């Protein structure tokens, strides 16, 4: 079956790839672009570890038809650090022991970034709501919630 040409912005950089019909964005990012930061957990929308921002909005890349991002901006965890400097959310996750095995971390960070980008000073309840589509099997969530609140109160989270 013919492949389709697809162009979009990946972490601020223009990329062009050829996709098979029906390819999801997670596969396109990992296998065609080589960005391994969004993870495959379930492929069903249930775990959230594949979360990315599309035009600034949180989406599940495993449930996104790759072709629907044509001409749009896709941001992954790979794009949030500034050179060798960690993003304030990444630093807060490290400081608050918010990652154990780390498998959920890319999705948690993107969900947290989506929240702080539009609400820099969220309440605890808002943080819980923001990460409610993301499953963590290790931390028990409390360190993650604390990390997001710490990044927010650091006032640097909009970076």
């Amino acid at each position, binding site marked *: *079956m013919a492949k*389709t040409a697809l162009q979009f912005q990946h972490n601020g950089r223009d990329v062009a790839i050829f996709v*098979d*019909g*029906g*390819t*999801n964005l997670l596969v396109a990012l990992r296998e065609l672009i080589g960005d391994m930061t969004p993870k495959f957990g379930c*492929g*069903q*929308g249930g775990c*959230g570890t594949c*979360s990315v921002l599309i035009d600034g*909005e*949180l*989406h*599940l890349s*495993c*449930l*996104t*038809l790759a*072709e*629907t991002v044509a001409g749009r901006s896709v941001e992954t965890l790979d794009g949030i650090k500034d050179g060798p400097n960690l993003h304030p959310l990444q630093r807060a996750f490290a400081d608050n022991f918010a990652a154990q095995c780390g498998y959920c971390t890319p999705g948690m960070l993107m*969900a947290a970034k*989506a929240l702080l980008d539009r609400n820099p000073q969220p309440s605890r309840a808002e943080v*819980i*709501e*923001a*990460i*409610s*589509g*993301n499953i963590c099997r290790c931390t028990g969530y409390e360190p993650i919630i604390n990390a997001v609140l710490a990044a927010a109160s650091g006032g640097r989270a909009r970076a």
Partner: protein
Amino acid sequence: MPVTVKTFTNTHDAAAALSSDRSARYLGGGTLVMRALNEGDISISTVVRASDHAMTRIDASGSRITLGAGVTFARILAERDLGFLHAPARSIGGPAVRNMGTVGGNLFAPVPYGDFTVAMLALDAVVSVQGGLGGREISIDEFLQTRDRQTGVLVLAISFARPGSTDAFRYRKIARIKPKGGAVITLAAHLPVNGSRIVGARIALGSMAPTPIRARAAERTLEGRALDASTISAAAAAAVEGTTPGDNALASAWYRREIVGVHLRRLLSGQE
């Protein structure tokens, strides 16, 4: 297996493509279609999309509200004029699912999903569909009863009258995982009042049958009555009539039958 993706700029062509190919599936937000493709569902060989702006339009300024089928739950939550629909919209998925999932896709979502459709059923919504031969409007009740036969039509929009007061529309989703989780059951009620009497009561239930259904026996107990303790008790007792819930991982059919009256009582008496 690769599928063919067909994107159309107008809804007529998209509807024609859908109606002429039994293995074509419309892609709304994709939260259910992409799941099926990821699982290797070979019954889908073509994915149809429509980029027509009408599909994502919201008209909430007047007394009659129209939501394009492609409107997402996040968009509803961002509309101040649609405050009465924020509870059903917020009850769906996590934030990413609300950014992606659409009102049109929810009409087709199987149990334990379809929460927004329960709200639409209580509001007596009308579904605008476009088939291969033309467009028509169909009541949501009839649409849901014939849902199996609606594959191949394109849903364009859904419209309904704004409830007369904030108290007239009520919604409750019972889930084990909060804030995210599939429904054990979902309830919505529209209780228009004339003087102190209810006229045109609508009660809709989710996960009590293969599609959302109206609790007609409970509706009859409310008709022409004031919403007092005895009326509420009669409605609660009648809630289970005509339901055919199933067992799933979230609850058994028995449990659903046991609790539906309890939650209808709470919904009608305004309890948390």
